[in-house]
């Protein structure tokens, strides 16, 4: 169906923003029988905060007790584990160790266990230095002790929200990409939304605009009720040769301000160190800085000395949609049929499904629950995790296009078609991993430029002068 029709239709729900939160919200309401449209201003979804995170599925062991954030994280955590197999989404049950490197940190461990138990994460326990060393043979002997959090896992940070959105679309939701919400007018019953592509008509609006949550709030209501203060996190990804050096996520003892620098395996078979925590005003520029990257590498080598011989595969940065306060900024303005899911700072990948539930509960305080779909479609996501049988193991894949990540022609073509095709190189990478390996496109960049001709909002090549 063309975009044109979308502008003439009336929707129950308009979701603003295709980050992980918007995708989960669109899915939830679609499965509950609502007619949903999602509006995303970028060429592809997952272009904001959800583009770059640590990909950890958190238990909430260290979240503020009694908070909405904790409730959403734990609901999100359980729902993910319940539904992931139907999507074919991977999880690696790594567990995490909060490691103490000095006496001061060692003293805090008891408190961390206490808080975890209070948060209902009952299996969290102290782990001795000897046990850490037995479990992780390569970790520095300077470790003094720690807390074991068996339930912290790693997941695929992109296939997961893509799966949510694909399911919404497969069950009737609509999406408009490259469409920015510019303003909204509530006529007492419905919203008239002005977008860069035309006017949309919806009964309820859910603001999931992440790093622009306050801007969208302001555009909808005339005055934002919170202020986004982007907080950048830089990362370094190590070569897959490092994967055998570490099995467990290594967390630092948290300080007041941040969760601190994490060293973690990724589901794709790399090791990741980061993120930094740097306040900035710009909401879209996520630059990397050599000095910070060098510090991250040094930090990683302190924890895992053998990393000194391992090459860097990638560097990236993400922006957390933090606000002037630490908590999630979720509210329901029932007079105006407006829900805001803002300030989902640093736990949104875990929390998304829980946030979607929470938002729906708020909605249902004032609206009849719709008839849930009896037999929804479950799209199956491509297998990208290192430990799974990837596409190249099945004949008929054409050829391998990206040698480092073993991405096939069939996978690239699939990612460029269907209801949610990749519209830029970032989107293609998130869907297939093409170009994300150790050579960073030395071998495949040009080939991808040719395969994506005419498919991207901005082509990879440039026209020649003559």
């Amino acid at each position, binding site marked *: 169906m063309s975009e044109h029709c979308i502008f003439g239709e009336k929707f129950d729900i308009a979701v603003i923003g295709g980050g992980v939160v918007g995708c989960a919200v669109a899915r939830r309401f679609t499965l509950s029988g609502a007619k949903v449209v999602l509006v995303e201003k970028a060429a592809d979804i997952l272009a904001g905060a959800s583009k770059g995170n640590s990909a950890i599925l958190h238990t909430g062991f260290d979240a503020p007790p009694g908070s909405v954030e904790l409730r959403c994280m734990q609901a999100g955590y359980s729902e993910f584990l319940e539904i992931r197999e139907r999507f074919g989404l991977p999880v690696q049950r790594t567990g995490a160790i909060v490691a103490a490197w000095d006496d001061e940190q060692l003293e805090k461990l008891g408190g961390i266990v206490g808080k975890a138990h209070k948060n209902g994460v009952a299996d969290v326990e102290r782990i001795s230095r000897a046990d850490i060393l037995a479990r992780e043979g390569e970790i520095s002997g300077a470790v003094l002790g720690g807390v074991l959090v068996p339930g912290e896992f790693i997941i695929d940070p992109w296939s997961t929200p893509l799966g949510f959105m694909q399911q919404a679309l497969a069950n009737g939701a609509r999406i408009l990409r490259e469409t920015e919400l510019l303003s909204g007018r509530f006529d007492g019953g419905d919203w008239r939304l002005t977008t860069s592509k035309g006017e949309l008509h919806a009964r309820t609006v859910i603001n999931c605009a992440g790093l622009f949550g306050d801007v969208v709030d302001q555009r909808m209501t005339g005055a934002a009720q919170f202020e986004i203060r982007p907080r950048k996190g830089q990362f370094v990804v190590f070569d897959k040769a490092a994967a055998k050096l570490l099995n467990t996520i290594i967390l630092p003892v948290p300080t007041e301000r941040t969760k601190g620098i994490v060293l973690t395996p990724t589901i794709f078979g790399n090791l990741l160190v980061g993120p930094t925590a740097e306040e900035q005003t710009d909401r879209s520029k996520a630059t990397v*800085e050599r000095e910070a990257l060098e510090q991250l590498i040094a930090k990683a080598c302190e924890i895992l000395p053998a990393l000194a011989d391992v090459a860097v595969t990638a560097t*990236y940065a993400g922006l957390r949609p933090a606000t002037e306060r630490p908590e999630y900024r979720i509210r329901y303005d029932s007079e105006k049929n407006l829900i805001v899911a803002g300030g989902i700072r640093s736990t949104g990948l875990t929390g998304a499904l829980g946030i979607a539930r929470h938002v729906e509960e708020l909605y249902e305080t004032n609206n009849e629950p719709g008839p849930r779909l009896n037999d929804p479609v479950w799209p199956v996501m491509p297998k990208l995790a290192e430990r799974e049988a990837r596409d190249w193991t099945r004949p008929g894949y054409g050829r391998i296009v990206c040698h480092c990540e073993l991405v096939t022609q069939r996978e690239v073509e699939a990612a460029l078609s269907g209801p949610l095709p990749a519209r830029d190189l970032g989107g293609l990478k998130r869907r297939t991993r093409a170009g994300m390996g150790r050579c960073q496109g030395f071998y495949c960049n*040009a080939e991808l430029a040719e395969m994506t001709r005419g498919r991207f909002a901005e082509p990879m090549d440039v026209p020649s002068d003559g």
Partner: protein
Amino acid sequence: MCRPMADIDVAIIGSGPAGISAALELRRLGVRKIVILEREREAGGVPRHCAHPPYGFWEFGRIMTGPAYARRLVRLAAQAGVEIRTLNTVLDLLPGGVLDVATPQGRVQLQPRRVMITTGARETPRSARLISGERPAGVINTGALQAYIHLHGMLPFRRPVIVGTELVSLSAVYDCRAHGVRPVAVIEQNSRATARWPLNLFPKLLGIPTLYHSEVVAIAGMPRVTSVLVRGAGADQKIACDGVLLTGKFLPEASLVRGSDLVLDPAAQGPAIDQFGRCSDPVYFAAGNVLRPVETAGWCFREGRRIARYVADDLAGRLAGPQGAAEIVCGDHVKFVVPQRLVPGGGAKHLEIRVRAAVQGRLRVLAGTNIIFEKNISALPERRILVPLRVLAEHGGDRFKVEIKS
């Protein structure tokens, strides 16, 4: 998965100059079944997309372009009865020479009698150089530029900044100018070009400013590059451009080795070998740029041929065994040595050495505390230095150190 197939005498991984010359030599020496496994659609390796001369001078006594040279190699291989299996990606090197291979028909295992690893080299990408800034499109290596132009008829940018002055950098300048791309500057971190005179004058002749003692410290623009920040002796300078070409800083494409039980030399970043090109598992041999960053195609060709002779000897039971190896290690100023092991009995004539940074002084080889070889040198990085291996072999010992006293 199929059972390992055991009828192959030598499997060669990679069809670049090293792999093909090895195959030709093995056939010439009467080795029967040679299979080259190549993951690309076309055989020929890097020369396939280096569309400029001079290739082939050593091998064929004439100067030709890369693609012509690659085609010639592939034709000779076919004529010699070498089987080249394209679209065959070797995934794993297992103990005893068992190869795990992805093919479009499915995954197979091969068990040739010997394996040669000739997987070549690539350039260091932006990420591993830790360059600051945004991460737009248009920041690529020369290998990708060549593939855009020569394999796909496309252009990745029109006004790039070129980083580096190695030979490959000049080859990039050549390619750019031949296709209407006008580089705005060449940036070199050292005080002089890495490439030798007179090639180093090439950019200047074309009117492209070369900034020495300078470095690209940040990249700006989204979704495309709009400028770079260059740090030199004076104030930082912003240069408008629509791409960044990161040339050179080669790395062996040795991920197969890293993932295997073979010993990798962290200095050369390729498999550690003895003077026969033999790896730590004696079924495996290696040649070409996978051994070290980086040599010319002509060198790789000759190296492939030489090591193929040892492989043939080994198949015939004539090669000295891997036992009793002495190790050769790097001392001051020395970035790497190849080979890293020396066993009794013949083999390569030279020890290949590179330095970390420009240095003048006395190159010495020590056996214990005895200086067994010395000479004055003035060396630049990325240039090969050779020491006769005979000196080491004649002296004997179980550990040699190569150093430069400046």
